[in-house]
């Protein structure tokens, strides 16, 4: 049923996948650190941190996008820092779409990670310590592999969420063909054009297929891992 896509459509699909992958790579390490902190940490302000992390889930995406623009724009403090240190500009670039995706998918990414870290029996870590493993060694050889199903599930969920990111992206980095026009933005643009319904339908089906494949893959991976972990 899928007709051959036009170059512009391919561009949007390729950009979406690129943004999704980079956003996942970018958000998994801090996501895991935050998930670990929230699962295991005992510190003042934990509730506040928990709230802050989940804020993008409930905030209007346009607000998140605007805040990103303030922080990462050319004159924003974080934007200047990125430019000075890494020479990376994110405002109105595809890299900005990556940042928007990463921030928006963080809460979705953290939840399964946190659950699976909480599910790791801390007695197993203590046992590893008595067998000669340092705290760090016990984390790497016991906690991390045992929470892997959640890490994978979180990563794929975050990826799927990143593919569909719209509100924060369009606010933060606008809708520039070939640079920031990802699949959802392309669909939105086509809806503004008379006679674009056919293309909209094609791209929508494509978006559904991509999201569905990602979710199924996450579920299968998690099941497979869980089975291996339980012997």
């Amino acid at each position: 049923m899928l007709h051959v896509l036009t170059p512009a459509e391919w561009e949007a699909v390729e950009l979406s996948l690129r943004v999704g992958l980079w956003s996942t790579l970018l958000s998994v390490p801090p996501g895991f650190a935050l998930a670990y902190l929230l699962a295991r940490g005992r510190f003042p302000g934990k509730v506040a941190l928990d709230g802050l992390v989940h804020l993008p889930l409930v905030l209007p995406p346009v607000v998140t996008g605007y805040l990103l623009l303030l922080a990462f724009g050319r004159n924003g403090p974080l934007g200047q820092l990125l430019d000075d240190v890494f020479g990376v500009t994110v405002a109105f670039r595809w890299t900005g779409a990556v940042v928007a995706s990463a921030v928006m998918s963080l809460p979705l990414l953290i939840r399964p990670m946190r659950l699976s870290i909480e599910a790791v029996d801390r007695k197993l870590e203590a046992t590893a310590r008595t067998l000669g493993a340092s705290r760090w060694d016990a984390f790497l050889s016991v906690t991390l592999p045992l929470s892997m199903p959640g890490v994978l599930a979180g990563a794929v969920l975050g990826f799927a969420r990143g593919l569909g990111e719209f509100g924060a992206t369009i606010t933060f980095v606008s809708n520039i063909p070939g640079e920031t026009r990802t699949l959802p933005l392309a669909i939105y643009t086509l809806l503004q054009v008379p006679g674009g319904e056919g293309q909209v339908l094609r791209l929508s089906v494509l978006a559904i297929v991509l999201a569905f494949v990602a979710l199924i893959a996450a579920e299968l991976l998690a099941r497979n891992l869980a089975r291996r972990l339980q012997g």
Partner: protein
Amino acid sequence: MLVIDIDATLGSFALKARIEAPASGVLALFGPSGAGKSSIANAIAGLLRPDKGRIALGSTTLFDSGARINVPPERRGIGLVFQDARLFPHLTVEDNLLFGRKRAQKHGTKDGLDVSPQQVIDLLGLGTFLKRRPGTLSGGERQRVALGRALLARPRLLVLDEPLAALDTARRSEILDYLAAIKATVDLPMVLVSHAVDEVVRLADRVAVVHEGEVADLGSTGAVLATPLLARLSGAGEPMAVIDAVSDGPAKGDGTLTRYVFPGGVLALPGAPAPRGEHVRLRIWAREVILASQPPIGLSVRNALTGTVRDIASAGEGICDVTVLVGETTLVARITESAAHALELVPGLPVFALVKSLAVDRFGGTVEL
């Protein structure tokens, strides 16, 4: 020497443990559930930090609040085996076994038990499931792997925290046999945390009775198990004598009996004969011992041991437990107070303790697997 002198707060409950015992053989921490035994085990291994005090093994101080020493668990060389085997579910049996050994090799650990994986696999019969994952093992198999894993981590002391409590009766006796085999083959001091007196009888050389957060008694297994306190805590309702004896082969003139020599006397017992020189442990319940002030004649009882009364403790309801020293061995007899009066029993009085051969339980020193 293993020195434990710690105060710890566990919720609303205060633990004060003072134990000093040779760092050899098996020391049992015996007591009812919730008495603080497992906390002592965790403190030895470094998983629980006492409020204050000192823990030392040989010349190594593991914890000393005064000197601000608290060696982390990974550098203590204490192998800990738990009630739930706590195998790593994501590793095969083989990788579980080698987990501690690899780390000991990496850190170049020189002291501690030096056994090869093959020795441990043979000793514990693990050869058939090395490639399997813990999830597919039975409870008894898991506990064997946990034992092997702890033995291979070059421990200087093996702490067994209720290792049999989660197993059914058949598996329990199987693991008990393996523990006895470890004790017999491996030169490693052990601490056995247990609330089951039969485990203590089978394995322990010394017993520390932990009761309501304190060490209520500490001594040789024979001495501690003969006390009324133990009778009360063990749930058995009566004290028992535990005697370490050596087989002297068939009794003269009666080949159906085997003589077992212990410091203070000899018992001739029926049953499968133990080869001469084999060490056995004998258990005699207090009810099965009769006391006489005169040498008995014309009785079916074969074993009359001469000793002196050490102590008479009332057990209530007109009965009392009389501790009798037979040489260096403690024997205990449960008799009526009226009989004690009739015999005019007082500490220091010479008596004859009559033991019915069939009432003696015998545990092999070395166990054939």
